[in-house]
């Protein structure tokens, strides 16, 4: 287990360094950093000053070294627009994005799991077929457009829920969160639902597939033969096994939710880091873009690592090479 752990962590570090290299050369070689840094009407002296100040006259390898050095300290330079350290600006917005992603994750489980269970237990019923067709429909919905529709329906026409911002927040364990105020929750409802849409479809399909697979296992027949009620079989024997792939996939999808929140945050003016990224891209605020991308890479790699390790620990069927069963 320890050898596996070390190897897996090593792989993760390798991925982070690879991505850092890609991001660095993407921004510095493919894109023209000078064009991003100076105003289009700047004169030659101004351009040269910027090149010198940002160390762009140094050889590219040396620049890369400086970038990596900054990376280990979480230093990506100051935002051009805000004049504050880029990473701090992003970390400030991280709780809002996490909140949105967690809300969406909970919604997709609460809505998707029961529907998938029904579709898996009664695959030939018309209701199940409708659920499956709807899940493809869910996959096809353009997130940003649904966001617009949600705002139009629930905020503009009905006036039930607010459409922009995060609402009141309270400090819990040092983090500002809107999960524990009524106002915060009403603000969270629409964006979280919007973000959850794609994942609801995913949970439905996953649940259905694994319920159908599980129901054909011998031990289910055995449980029936023992005379257990159908309800108990589903609750105890099926649901437990079905949850393993769902937890795995949702763990992996959590990073995806954070990435996709870029779209949702833009529509609902949710003050998270996705909205910050879009603004940074539009204003060519390079330090923010780089810091965001590196943070996301680290988040992704960490999630993958955790899911892999938990999976190995949870699932008795996974036996690692070299270990005796």
């Amino acid at each position: 287990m320890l050898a596996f752990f070390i190897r897996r962590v090593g792989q993760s570090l390798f991925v982070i360094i690879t991505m850092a290299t890609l991001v660095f050369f993407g921004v510095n070689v493919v894109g023209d950093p000078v064009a991003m840094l100076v105003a289009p009407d700047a004169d030659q002296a101004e351009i040269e000053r910027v090149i010198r100040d940002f160390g762009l006259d140094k050889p590219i390898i040396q620049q890369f070294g400086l970038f990596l050095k900054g990376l280990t300290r979480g230093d990506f330079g100051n935002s051009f627009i805000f004049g504050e350290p880029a990473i701090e600006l992003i970390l400030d917005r991280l709780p809002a994005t996490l909140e949105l992603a967690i809300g969406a994750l909970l919604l997709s489980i609460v809505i998707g799991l029961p529907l998938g269970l029904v579709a898996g237990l009664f695959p030939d019923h018309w209701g199940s077929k409708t659920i499956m067709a709807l899940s493809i429909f869910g996959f096809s919905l353009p997130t940003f457009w649904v966001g617009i529709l949600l705002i139009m329906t629930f905020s503009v026409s009905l006036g039930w829920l607010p459409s922009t911002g995060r609402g009141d927040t309270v400090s819990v364990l040092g983090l500002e969160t809107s999960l524990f105020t009524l106002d915060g929750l009403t603000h969270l409802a629409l964006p979280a639902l919007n973000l959850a849409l794609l994942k609801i479809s995913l949970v439905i399909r996953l649940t259905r597939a694994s319920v159908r697979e599980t129901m054909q296992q011998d031990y289910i027949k055995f449980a029936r033969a023992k005379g257990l009620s159908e309800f108990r079989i589903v609750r105890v024997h099926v649901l437990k096994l079905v949850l393993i792939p769902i937890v795995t996939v949702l763990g992996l999808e959590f990073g995806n939710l954070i990435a996709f929140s870029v779209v949702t945050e833009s529509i609902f003016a949710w003050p998270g880091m996705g909205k910050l990224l879009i603004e940074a891209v539009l204003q060519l605020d390079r330090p923010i873009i780089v810091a965001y991308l590196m943070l996301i890479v680290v988040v992704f790699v960490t999630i993958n690592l955790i899911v892999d390790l938990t999976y190995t620990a949870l699932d008795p069927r996974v036996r690692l090479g070299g270990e005796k069963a």
Partner: protein
Amino acid sequence: MIAKSLNSPLALFLRRFSDNNVAVFAALGLIVIIALAIFAPWITPQNPYDLAQVDILDARLPPGEEAFAGFTFILGSDGAGRDVFSAILYGLRISLSVGVASGLIAMAIGTFIGLIAAFAGGRTDAIIMRIVDLQLSFPAILVALMLVAVLGKGVDKVLIALVVVQWAYYARTVRGTALSERKKEYVEAAQNLGLSAKRVLFFHVAPNCLSPLIVVATIQTAHAIALEATLSFLGLGLPQTEPSLGILIANGYEYMVSGKYWISVFPGLALLCTVFCINLTGDQLRDVLNPRLSK
């Protein structure tokens, strides 16, 4: 004679495809959508981008109102007095072309790389597949955003971004299929005939990887269209001079709060129908073309 034509691969395929009424409906819908896009100039009452045909006094009229030029705005008019219905059909042309073009390029590149990986094996294969895994572990929207952020705006840049996010799916699919094809007798036979490895690879194995490729291509095209729309909506995709459906939705967004829903709801509906039809068709294609499920 008749029996033979009924059992031709195409007839068999059509029969199995039409098992599912919803899928047939979706496929027909898709054909209608493509036809509408291709014949847009002959169907639409106006060319929304010909300034001579657009009257600013017609701006923001609700569906059913009559235009100054005499025709009816069946889906209303937008902020510049363009017919929303016409703009949607012209937008469909752009959205579909970008989606299909990026899909084809990605398919060509992905197939090539996937075949190389399958046949080279060993180190080459391992390296290629690590890159594919790495790429696929990051969400498409993020990779595309990053590329557009680096490359800048423009049709070519969006195409590049869409190709980059798609090729890995094709490469993985082709590699998997090619690996199993490689063990089959016909490949051995072709090799024993003394055909070059290149020839066996591209003329014997590649065509047999087609059915999974078609499935991936359908789904990926739908993704590409939706992704382009999302990027364009965020202002990071196509320029205003190439008004795809995403741009139409973005342009109508500002009129939403004042209740002029039609300017962005209908283009969105068109986008949804397109993507939904492609996805349903792709889903059924997967069932029909999957050899494991055939009886």
